[in-house]
């Protein structure tokens, strides 16, 4: 009886340390991107405290970039918040997937776990070989990213304040590149229906550019999403009927 138990626990210890190592490695890499966010936030006119509040409370990279991106394009408050929330709906679906795995008991734990439900923690938790390691992966990835993302946000924000004109031009090129990097994996590898994703992306970009001269800055981004959604509606209805 004791032999298989020992064996099981030994295997699970090495699995555990591998999971921890992967989680912390990914977390450290992702945490570094906070520099780009901090600099973009400063470019959009946000103070370091405002940038840090976003990283600490919002804590979901794509939404954060969207909010400062709309602001730096001269967009209004509603368009900025709207873009962030639209991208934030992803995390709701992740939460539904993670709920049985994390099974947080009581409100304090649920509220704490919810804060770290993002792309990377979900990917790591779902990829883990079992439920226990899934939890380890979730918390380790979340903690590492949270720490790195907030520290590097401050570094990026403070660093951007001292930028000259050429460095500002560099930053102007970094922000769209950051969006492209967030978009890229959806168009290529394992993404569901990459061909449809590409059409959707192209549609979104074209509609946004066409509307740019005619609507207040930032609004074209929201309208592009609405337009692409409406264009995809018949297919969605068909999918629902067959389901």
């Amino acid at each position: 009886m004791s032999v298989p138990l020992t064996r099981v626990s030994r295997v699970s210890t090495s699995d555990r340390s591998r999971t921890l190592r992967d989680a912390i490695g990914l977390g450290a890499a992702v945490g570094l991107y906070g520099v780009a966010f901090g600099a973009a936030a400063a470019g959009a006119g946000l103070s370091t405290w405002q940038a840090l509040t976003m990283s600490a409370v919002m804590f979901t990279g794509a939404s954060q970039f969207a909010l400062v991106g709309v602001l730096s394009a001269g967009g209004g408050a509603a368009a900025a918040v709207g873009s962030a929330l639209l991208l934030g709906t992803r995390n709701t679906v992740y939460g539904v997937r993670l709920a049985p795995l994390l099974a947080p008991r009581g409100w304090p734990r649920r509220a704490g776990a919810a804060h770290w439900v993002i792309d990377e923690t979900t990917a790591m938790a779902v990829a883990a070989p079992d439920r226990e390691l899934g939890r380890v992966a979730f918390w380790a990835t979340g903690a590492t990213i949270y720490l790195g993302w907030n520290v590097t946000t401050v570094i990026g924000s403070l660093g951007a304040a001292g930028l000259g004109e050429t460095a500002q031009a560099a930053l102007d090129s970094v922000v769209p590149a950051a969006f492209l990097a967030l978009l890229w994996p959806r168009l290529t590898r394992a993404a569901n229906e990459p061909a449809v994703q590409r059409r959707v992306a192209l549609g979104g970009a074209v509609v946004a550019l066409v509307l740019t001269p005619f609507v207040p800055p930032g609004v074209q981004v929201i309208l592009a999403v609405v337009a692409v959604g409406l264009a995809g509606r018949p297919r969605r209805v068909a999918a629902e009927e067959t389901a």
Partner: protein
Amino acid sequence: MSSGTLWAVVLVGAVGCYLLKLAGLSVPAAWVERPWVTRVVEFVPAALLAALVAVQVASSGSALVLDGRLVGLAVAAVALALRAPFIVVLVLAGAAGALVHVLTG
């Protein structure tokens, strides 16, 4: 935009995004796992991110502008196609944008 408005944008956006996360862990799965919801959530990011790329790279307020940002984006696309890490993509795009600024400015 005043500092007060910016704070409002930051706080409303941050709390809203947090509540979206909390909702996922709190609502019955059946509410969210409907075909049209999953469909929307699957494709909204691509449309939104692509729209943001386009607007960030080619607009200035209500005007369409072509400048070093487009060169930076092209460099970023090549780097992404070659599977460069995120940070390398950003550095290359920034360097390209700065170079165009120096050459044309």
